[in-house]
């Protein structure tokens, strides 16, 4: 791709990314935590399954799934963790605090579904 000398090049075309290299979700997006119930090592607490929240931040860089890492699999496809925001009233029925109160937690991309 030609670009004028002295000017910044435009976006690269034809660049292919590794699987999982680009985050699927962006800050502000509404997501739901999956409702699956794996046995064995998991890092998404039961109290969060099926809850709806908002992506607050993408954690960089992409990393190994810690649920796989627990079994010694230190390598493989990397994806993103996200810092996700939940109102406490969404997480706990009958929450006895301020309706403003919130929860933040890191969740791996494989656990997130678009709302």
């Amino acid at each position, binding site marked *: 791709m030609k670009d004028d000398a002295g000017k910044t090049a435009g976006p690269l075309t034809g660049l292919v990314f590794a699987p999982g290299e680009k985050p699927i979700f962006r800050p502000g997006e509404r997501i739901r935590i999956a409702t699956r*119930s*794996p*046995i064995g*090592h*998991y890092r998404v*607490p*039961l*109290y969060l399954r099926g809850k709806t929240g908002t992506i607050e931040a993408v954690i960089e860089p992409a990393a190994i799934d*810690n649920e796989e*890492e*627990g*079994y*010694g699999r*230190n390598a493989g496809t990397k994806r993103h963790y996200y810092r996700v925001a939940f109102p406490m009233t969404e*997480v*706990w029925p009958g929450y006895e605090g301020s309706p403003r109160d919130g929860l933040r937690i890191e969740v791996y991309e494989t656990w997130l579904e678009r709302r």
Partner: protein
Amino acid sequence: MTETQDLVKRLPNDIGGLPAEPIRQVDHALEPWEKRCHALADVLDYHKIINTEEKRCGVEALGAEMIGKLTYYERWIVAFANILFRKGILTPEALARKMAEVEARWDAENGGGKEGAAHRQD
């Protein structure tokens, strides 16, 4: 049926939101062996012999009864032993022999033997 499924689906350490007692603000200075155990965990992680997540998985695998009855670093060292066995790095026999050797060495260096045995915790 549902009751046993719930046991299987909830890891013993997954306690967020469960009912619990008032917090007692307890703390203790680490015993020397506990500090060595923590250092061992870090060194094993540096070498990727047992990474931090494997350690967590190993502690979970101890099951609810042991988790409830062993202290924090006791859980770690038992989990390390189990993981090292599974990876073929140590054998149960090698560890048992070494533990007996460590004990005997301490007794020999401290004029122990029968006298020491009388005070043993287990």
